[in-house]
């Protein structure tokens, strides 16, 4: 399941990560228009980005993050060619991760 699209670019020693995750991010407040039943909450709770075993960023999310979440951040201390990994876990225990090489 490739749910993560990620890019890592380095410029002047600062690595910029841009990631898009495919996920419904259901809040649990919306009703299905056809059946009238509430769509249960289903959203990503935690996103972790690691570089060489160090956690660069941990994002804790509530259901108010938009559908198919976008995330961008910057960090220093990496070099071109290093691998950065991003993983997420949602409230149903589903998860995915992806590795990308810094360019």
């Amino acid at each position, binding site marked *: 399941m490739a749910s993560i699209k990620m890019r890592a670019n380095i410029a002047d020693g600062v690595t910029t990560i841009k990631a898009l995750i495919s996920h419904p991010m259901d809040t649990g407040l919306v009703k299905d228009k056809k059946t009238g039943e509430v769509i249960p909450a289903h959203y990503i709770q935690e996103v972790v980005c690691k570089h060489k075993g*160090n*956690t660069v*960023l941990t994002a*804790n999310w509530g*259901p*108010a*993050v*938009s559908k198919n979440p976008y995330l*961008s951040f910057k960090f*220093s201390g990496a070099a071109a060619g290093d691998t950065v990994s991003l993983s997420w876990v949602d409230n149903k225990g589903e998860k995915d991760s992806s590795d990308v090489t810094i360019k």
Partner: protein
Amino acid sequence: MTSMKRRIFLKGTLATGAVGMAVSTGLLTPRTSFAAWSKAAFEAKDVSSALSSLYGASDMTSSDKISIKAPDIAENGAVVPVSVTTSIDGASSISIIADQNATPLTAEFILGPGTEGYVSTRIKMGKTANVIAVVKAGDKLYSSKKEVKVTIGGCGG
């Protein structure tokens, strides 16, 4: 007499039992360690209790070292791009809050040692509200806010 005492004793154990349950399920204790998803904070209905659950305090100092990039008017509340940049030294955590949402706390970003004070994401907003960015540096909380007008809500309205 003995039966009376037994009644009181039973009442007492029941009461402490309920409190003990609340503590053990994390309802009463503020979050002490990072990297644990705080259910209490994300389900809190107002800004100060969300911050208390998340950081253990809700006193914020407003700071001009935090800038929020968000649209003045969001046509679609389901997708509001928000970027937060801070130049505060030692910033360890950035939170994004939409103060009129049913559960205001939207996202918390815990920054690693080499991570810059910048995050960008997209959030849902139920109606026109202040987007508040809270930055934790050391033991202090700093904040800044920006009003975003929402014409179509993004939380099922």
